[in-house]
Structure formats: structure tokens, C-alpha cells
């Protein structure tokens, strides 16, 4: 009898635990999906529908909001700036980050642990703290209000991730493959280009895309360091008060969609970054 009660109780606990689990998952999904859904509805509705009340829960598939957005002065330039800065960030963070990731994964050197910690620590300083001295320095060197200057700052933000992702990618490639290549007539460099590079290229792409998204989403440095050459985020922030509601929605949508698509495409490698095995 006591056995039966114990079994019954544990089954009960398990059942309620399961409900709690499902409810939590549903809540978290709603937390993320509902705002994005509203963003979608309002972007695909006519400006009149966006400003009226009550709101509809199904999109009208009216593209006049997006058309208005595209026609808004400075918007397309800002979009172009965003893409340019993000591309520069992407290239620079890989060129700097991937060799660091390789070194971390393949060599033993004094201070390796400290180096890894420092890489993470670069994310510990809030950007506003750095923005003022950076702005002063950029003005002195003439880098202020340029896409390259902003890309430099974004690269700094993206490098820790580039290093960590590439580190885990390189660690996933057995050193024996490189050693085999060396014994088969490769130098360190040719072994890298002929064996390691083809194997990590998909992961490098993922890491690059992640850097792109970091730059694409970044608003604070963009707002502080640029005036004429605003990126889309900074431009929208600047015009937030004055612009009509449907413009904000359309801008938000344009910002969210690429980031979402890219992150979805590279999710496998982001798991790898946190040490969750993906093969």
C-alpha cells in the first residue's frame, strides 16, 4: 500500500512537473513570437490600419507601409550604411578572430587561460563607458562618422564570439588530420588550406554571419559615432519620436528579419560555441 502511494505520488509530481515545463516553454515562445507577430501584422498593413483601433490580428498584406518606408528620405542610405558596416565587421572579425581561435585550440602557451578570460572580459565593459573616449579619439584621428570607424567598434564587439566559435570549430578537427597532411608532404600552411579550411568553412561562414548580425543590431555606438553616415538602427532611433507609427513598424521589421533568418541559419554552430556537441 505504501508502495502504491509512493508510485502514485511520484506519477502526480511528474505530471504536474510536465505541465509546468510545457507552460514555461509556451510562455517563453510567446514572449519572443508575439511581439514579432505584431511587428509583422503592422508592417504588412496600410498606414491607416496601423493608426486605427481596434487592431486586426491578421495581416492585410498591404505594402504601402513598406513603400512609405523605402521612400522616406535617408532611409535607404541608412540601410546601405548598415550593410556596409556589417560586411566590414564580418570580414575584420573573421580575419582577426579565426587565427586566435586556431592558436587557442592548437597551441599550449603561457597565459592561455588568462587570454581566454580576457577575450570574454571585452564584453564586460558597457559600451557607453567606452563611447565617449572612443568618440574623442575618432574625431582626433578622423575616423568619426565613417563606416570604417564604426565597423572597428563593431569588430571589437564581434571578436569574442568569432574567437570562441572558431576555437570550438578548430577543436572539433582532430590534430591527426593535420599531422597526416604534414607527413604527406604539406607544410603547416598547405595543411591548413588543403585540410583544415575546407572542413571548417561552413562554420567560418556561420561565425561571419553572426558577426554581421551583431553589427546589424548594434545601436548605441552607431548613434554616438555617426552623424551623417547613420546606420539603420541609429537612423530609426534618431527619428523615433518624430516619425509616424507605420514607419517605426516597417523599420523594426526590416531590422528584425535579416537577423532572424541569419541566426536561424547558423543555430547549429552557435550551439557548438557553448560547448554543446553538434555531431
Amino acid at each position: 500500500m505504501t508502495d502504491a502511494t509512493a508510485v502514485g505520488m511520484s506519477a502526480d509530481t511528474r505530471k504536474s512537473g510536465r505541465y509546468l515545463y510545457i507552460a514555461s516553454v509556451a510562455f517563453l515562445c510567446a514572449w519572443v513570437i508575439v511581439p514579432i507577430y505584431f511587428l509583422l501584422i503592422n508592417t504588412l498593413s496600410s498606414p491607416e490600419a496601423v493608426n486605427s483601433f481596434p487592431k486586426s490580428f491578421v495581416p492585410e498584406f498591404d505594402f504601402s507601409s513598406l513603400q512609405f518606408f523605402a521612400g522616406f528620405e535617408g532611409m535607404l542610405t541608412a540601410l546601405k550604411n548598415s550593410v556596409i558596416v556589417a560586411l566590414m565587421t564580418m570580414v575584420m572579425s573573421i580575419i582577426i578572430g579565426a587565427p586566435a581561435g586556431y592558436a587557442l585550440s592548437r597551441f599550449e602557451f603561457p597565459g592561455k587561460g588568462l587570454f581566454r578570460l580576457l577575450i570574454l572580459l571585452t564584453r564586460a565593459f558597457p559600451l557607453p563607458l567606452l563611447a565617449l573616449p572612443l568618440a574623442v579619439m575618432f574625431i582626433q584621428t578622423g575616423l568619426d562618422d565613417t563606416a570604417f570607424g564604426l565597423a572597428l567598434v563593431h569588430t571589437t564587439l564581434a571578436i569574442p564570439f568569432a574567437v570562441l566559435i572558431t576555437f570550438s570549430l578548430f577543436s572539433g578537427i582532430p590534430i591527426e588530420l593535420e599531422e597526416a597532411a604534414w607527413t604527406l608532404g604539406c607544410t603547416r600552411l598547405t595543411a591548413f588550406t588543403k585540410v583544415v579550411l575546407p572542413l571548417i568553412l561552413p562554420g567560418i561562414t556561420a561565425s561571419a554571419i553572426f558577426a554581421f548580425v551583431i553589427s546589424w543590431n548594434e545601436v548605441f555606438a552607431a548613434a554616438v559615432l555617426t552623424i551623417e553616415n547613420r546606420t539603420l538602427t541609429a537612423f530609426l532611433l534618431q527619428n523615433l519620436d518624430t516619425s509616424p507609427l507605420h514607419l517605426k513598424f516597417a523599420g523594426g521589421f526590416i531590422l528584425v528579419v535579416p537577423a532572424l533568418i541569419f541566426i536561424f541559419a547558423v543555430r547549429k554552430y552557435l550551439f557548438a560555441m557553448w560547448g554543446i556537441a553538434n555531431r
Partner: protein
Amino acid sequence: MAEIQIKNVAKSFGAYQALNNINLTIADQEFMVLLGASGCGKSTLLRIIAGLETATSGEVWIGGKRIDHLSPKDRGIAMVFQNYAVFPHLTVFENIGFGLRMQKLPNDEVTQRVERVAGLMHIEMLLKRYSGELSGGQRQRVAVARALAMEPDVILMDEPLSNLDALLRMEMRAELKGVLAESKTTAIYVTHDQVEAMSMADRISVMHEGNIVQAASPIEVYRDPAAKFVASFIGNPPMNFLPATPAGAGKWQVSGQTFDGPNTDKAGLQFAIRPEDMAPAEHGLVATAKIVEPLGAHLLVTCQIDEAQFRVILDSDTVVKPGQTLTLAPQSDRVRWFDPETTLAVA
């Protein structure tokens, strides 16, 4: 001609001495096996010869040329790795031809050589596949074929069969031995498996704690171990040891019995005999049977002589029960003697 000479090679990792002053000469076309437990330095020695590891001191010569300062690609070696190291992004054909492509050989020669070694390793039908589509045994064949395609002076193998299952290992063992004998390359083969070592080697170097304890033919290593370590490492079950006390010139007393032994003035020796070199007789060592294991081909009896554990292999028809007393006579020409202080063999 690719004779390998290892001269005074030592390697330390920080304070840890992995290899102490290794000296070894391997003849042209010889099949040398480095045998030892894990951590004995056998892989380190192989990697130093390959150039994947740098010796702390000493020299390595191949074919009369000093090569320890050269990078792996310039040493005339090819290596087979324990986990195969087949490149996953290339087909079997391109894997085998990888080294030849690096040498920029013309296409038709690459094709011809790849097809020849693929035939040798019986993997002609796999040439278009990728490593992910191969079994462990097939990957191992690709790895060996890739090394052979280089037509190296020396082929180095680091536990190449240890990831295969037992049956496949036995099959590959025989095949590898045949292929390597035919290719006329000098081979160094690292393993911890004594059966592999005994069955393949021309000569075995038994390694222990960074030293080569004995380098000799398999049968010599088995019959005449140079040290107690070799005697207790090789053979399954290993040699039996009993303490012996002097009983006059060239005579030694072992468990109440007198045997002819070496004529030395040592205060004591160790008497050693292989389990299969004993037979029940009227006079001999008196042992109490403890555990009886019928193994089919023979009977393994673990018994006790005085305080020492003692194993004998008897004919499978022998009837022995635990607790029974056996009188065992050692085959006199198979008895060996070790000095308990130096642990070395005494003739």
C-alpha cells in the same frame, strides 16, 4: 636503402622524462615493433622519428642521412594513425592520392599508383566514397593505402589496428604483414598488443618507462627475456617467478627442490618458468590448485607454491580439482633466472 638509426634520443615534457637516451638501429626492410604499456614512450619515439615531436636531445638518421631537423614532409616517411586520419572532405581516391598530388605528379601517374595500392588493400570499389561512408576497417585500409602510395623509405604505424574489433584485427594483422613484406619498406609499428607484436615483427623492442628494455626477435623476447619486466609483460599468462636460495656451486634451492642454475655468488635469485613449460610428474614443485579454468585448447590452473601464485597450462584432458595437490616438473631447458636486485636475466 633505409636503415634507421636512433642515437641517444631523449625527450622530456617539462620535468617528466618520457624517453631516456634511446639507441636503436633498424635494418633496411626490417619490421620493427615497439611494444609497451601505455605511457612507456613508444608513441613519443615514433612521433620523433616522424617529425611530429622534437627530441630534447639526440639524433635520428634514415638511410645515412640525418633527418631530425627536417620537417615531416622531407623525411621520406609515411605514417598510419590510430584513428585513421582519413580526410573527411575528400573521396577515398583523393585521400590515397593526396601525397602524390602534393608532389605534383602527373594525373595519369596518380591514377595508376592509387589504383595499384587500392588493389593491394582490396578497396578498389570504394574509391569514389567519402570517409563517412566507410566502416572502421575500410578506413584503416584507406589509411594504409595512402601511406603505401607515397612509396616511402619508412612506414610508421601508431597502433593502427587498436580501434578494430578482434576478428577484423586478426585478419588485418596477417594482411598488413603480407603487404608490408612485399612493399620492401622499413616499418616501425607501435602497439601495446603483444600478440600483434609477436605475430608481425621481425624484431620487437620492448619499452618500459622511457627505456628500451630488450630489442630482439619475437621468439627470443619470449624465450629469453632480458629482464623481469619483459618476462612478466610478454606471455599470457606471463612467466611464473619463485625465490631461489644458493645450494652449492651452480645449484639453487626452489621451494624445497634443487635445480641446476647459474654459477654466481649472489645471495639469492629468482627462478622463472613459463606456465606451459611445466608438466605433472612424480618429482617436482608441489603446488596446491586454487582455480581451474578450462579454456578449450588447454587447462589453465592457478595454484599456490609456498606463498607465491603460480600458473600452469596443462593438457585439456588433465583432471584437476581446486584444492588438489599437483607435483609439477619444469622443463629444464626452459628455466630462466633473474637477479632480484637488478631485475636482469642471469645466465
